[in-house]
């Protein structure tokens, strides 16, 4: 009897414990749901979210941000402004704020604009508290088991994608992969006057490439000096022009090219190809491309901003994003089968990549800029 009572008691305690655990597990879910509904309702009242894109996103990406979001939240309109290039939205935001106007809610694009211009000016709010959906906040969903940030504080510039930068684009009729297996090959006389670099003095892929070389230390500086002063390098600030020149044969190797433009032109049959990181002896670098998002402080529509950021970081949105941009996303549950596998960072090789979208590299760019200004006379 006593034993039976004990068994019953044990069973009852176990049942209570299980129920308690289940309830404990259920409560936060219920909490986030209620909280999320409240934020969405408030966002609907705000009616719109104003987003600045600083990376020159393509038409399909813009369509995803505007139409994709509004399909899910028809009551919240997205007013998206795509600026002329990294950095160019910053003077406008800063001028407005000096005059007491707070127009923007969310910033997306590369990491240069938020880190180099907006973070020092105190324009950004911590983004972590704005993350609400469990599928977004769950670290296990993200590459390396954590949400990545470009800023040192790990709280302002959230990075949700990028790729391992292919070192070169080239004209597939005039160059073969056998011709080059190291960056140092670019210094050979046969490539003199034949290479075109995206202008590294402006924020963008050319600067990312030079930052990578600069990270080699004195050897890297020597490489940059010789490459820029001895090899008659052509500079351009236009990604499309860079690849068109390659396709026409005006130049044969392009450095700091844009992967989206590359994919688009390749799909049209232009004679272009690219080296992946595996084709080159040296290690490579991971870039965030246009895959960062930040929350602007004193945003006039804070709830709509939170809804947009959470929507952007869901599996569904980032799956679509990866397809339209051709970039890798840091979400582990997004399929990347459509991508060239050379673009995807390998978890075991992370220590060998330079993560040059991070603040410690971005803040070196002033120093790199001065170094480049001494070399470039164009």
């Amino acid at each position, binding site marked *: 009897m006593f034993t039976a009572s004990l068994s019953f008691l044990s069973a009852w305690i176990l049942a209570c414990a299980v129920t308690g655990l289940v309830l404990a597990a259920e409560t936060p879910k219920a909490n986030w749901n209620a909280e999320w509904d409240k934020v969405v309702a408030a966002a609907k009242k705000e009616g719109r979210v104003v987003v600045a894109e600083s990376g020159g996103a393509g038409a399909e990406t813009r369509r995803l941000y505007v139409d994709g979001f509004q399909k899910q939240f028809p009551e919240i309109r997205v007013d998206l402004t795509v600026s002329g290039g990294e950095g160019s939205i910053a003077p*406008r935001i800063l001028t407005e704020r000096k005059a007491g106007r707070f127009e923007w809610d969310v910033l997306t694009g590369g990491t240069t604009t938020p880190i180099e211009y907006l973070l020092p000016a105190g324009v950004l709010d911590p983004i972590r508290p704005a993350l609400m959906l469990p599928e977004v906040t769950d670290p296990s969903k993200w590459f390396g088991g954590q949400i990545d940030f470009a800023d040192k504080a790990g709280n302002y510039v959230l990075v949700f994608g990028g790729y391992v930068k292919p070192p070169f684009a080239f004209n597939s009729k005039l160059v073969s992969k056998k011709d080059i297996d190291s960056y140092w090959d670019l210094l050979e006389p046969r490539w003199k006057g034949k290479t075109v670099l995206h202008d590294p003095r402006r924020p963008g892929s050319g600067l990312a490439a030079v930052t990578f070389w600069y990270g080699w230390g004195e050897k890297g500086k020597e490489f940059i000096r010789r490459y820029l002063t001895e090899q008659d390098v052509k500079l351009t600030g236009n990604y499309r022009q860079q690849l068109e020149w390659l396709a026409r044969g005006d130049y044969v190797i392009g450095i700091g090219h844009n992967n989206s433009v590359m994919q*688009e032109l390749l799909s049209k049959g232009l004679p272009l190809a690219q080296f992946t990181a595996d084709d080159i002896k040296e290690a490579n670098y991971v870039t965030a491309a246009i895959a960062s998002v930040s929350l602007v402080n004193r945003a006039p529509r804070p709830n709509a901003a939170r809804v947009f950021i959470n929507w952007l970081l869901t599996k569904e949105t980032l799956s679509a994003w990866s397809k339209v941009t051709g970039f890798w996303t840091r979400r582990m549950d997004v399929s990347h089968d459509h991508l060239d596998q050379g673009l995807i960072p390998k978890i075991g090789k992370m220590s060998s990549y330079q993560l040059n979208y991070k603040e410690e590299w971005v803040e070196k760019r002033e120093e790199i800029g001065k170094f480049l200004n001494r070399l470039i006379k164009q």
Partner: protein
Amino acid sequence: MEKSAFLEATVFSQWRLNLQALLLTFLLGFVCLLVLTPLIWTLLNSFLVSKPWEPAVYGLHGWRVAFSSPGIQAAVYNSFSLAIVRQAIALVAGVFLAWLLARTDMPMKRWLEFMFWFSFFIPALPVTLGWILALDPKTGVVNTWLKSLSLIDGPLFNIYSFWGIVWAHLTAGSLGVKVMFLTPAFRNLDAVFEEASRVAGAGTMTTLWRIIFPVMLPSIMATTTLGLIRSLETFEIELILGVPVGIDVYSTKIHDMIALDPASGLGPAAALSTFFLVLLLLLVLCQRILIARRMYATVTGRFSSRPTSLGRWRYPAFVLVMLVVLTITVVPLGFLLMGTFMSVFGFMNIPQPWTLEHWREVLRDPIFFRSVLNTLRVAFGAALGGVIIYPLIAYFIVKSRFSGKAVLDFVSWLPWAVPGILLGVGLLWTFLNTPGLNALYGTVYLMIIAIVIKSMPVGVQLTKSVMIQLGNELEEASSTCGASWMQTYRRILFPLLSPMLLVAGLLVFNSAARDISTVVLLGTADSKTLSLLMLEWAMGTGAIEKATVIGVIVVLIVALTSIVARRLETKAAIKS
């Protein structure tokens, strides 16, 4: 009774004077606020050495950077040589063409003149792309065709060169704008001058050179000065055709300074702009000295506009003008249209070079229709604002005796002293910090004001050039008949000015439809115009083909407006 009438007349006269003084003061204040504030902002920023988020620190660093940056001397030299060469060609050709269109019996003059208007309204960016398609040294259709006929070994034409840039400019508006400005002025010329010259035994060309040219000097000087200033500020064509082959100009350097360093580049860019401002002042001064002490009234109460007979040269002249017109309109437009159907702009040797996809994508995009509506709102608003404000400013500069008119005249030139991108930043700052205007931030109204300011030099100078030709006797006769100043302005001056005002209005409309740099910082996602959409699609990842589709649509809009304006102008022309 007589004393009472005298008093009444005196009071009325004083009131009229006060009304004019009030209006002038208001105009002066309004124009100075909108024009000078961005310029003062530019000057101040040329000395700013701190970053936007740091406390303001002033110094000469910006000036040092501006004038020691690599290639700056070559850029200034290129700016002047390109501007002078193309203005010289456009001026000689423009005077001759305008004279043919306005003063001779050449057939189909009105239609040909309209085509020059039209050539000016085609946005420069798509025209340049059209010429690249035709004259690229490697893939250009014309070079390839000539090569296939074994007429040449290498490329005959190279659009990426000094002369390529000159050519693109001439066809993208430099010639068209000269003809547009000068033809109405030629038309207002009293035929008495030509008849007197002929009676004195002078031939047609002697009359053109010795009589008409000097009498037309104000209009010619105005258009030349405007053209020269405008040439120094141009940007897109040099960026596309010059920069790839190392031909930098002053404006591309300014663009580079801001693009390369958005935080600290504003100082050097503003310093270069201030330097340019001084050059502009010198140009304006030269113009004023040249035309200061002469009388140029060519439309009087005895006005006659009988055309000069070209005799056997009538049809050869027609063919010549027709060829020019086709070269600057149909040819680039044809290539432009062709470009919109190309899978990849400029590439014909790919598997599927032709497609309708770009048109489909543009026309099914909701943002396109929003942008069309915004463009029309901004363009009509700016044209209307310009047509009201410019003649008032011109009237006070030319006809009034107030001492402030010299200041007004000078200030009206200034919006062209600063490149569009800097003026845009300056206007942004002005609008944000001016109570009243602040409330308009983010709406199309600010874009309208910005376009009216940016187009002020051309609008005012155009109207002035005709205003100078109007004799005071028309106003005096109206006043004698008892008309008030406002009645005289509305019933006599405004109709006489209307052909030129339509040109000015159309010009402003066109600027609004295609301006990018001035409004790029003022436009929001809500107020985006077609030109901003074109920029968005052309930049970054570069959907250049879709941008070209927008270019064609902008051309269609301005062509339609041109036809309407032309019809209105025909009704309002002096000869009627």
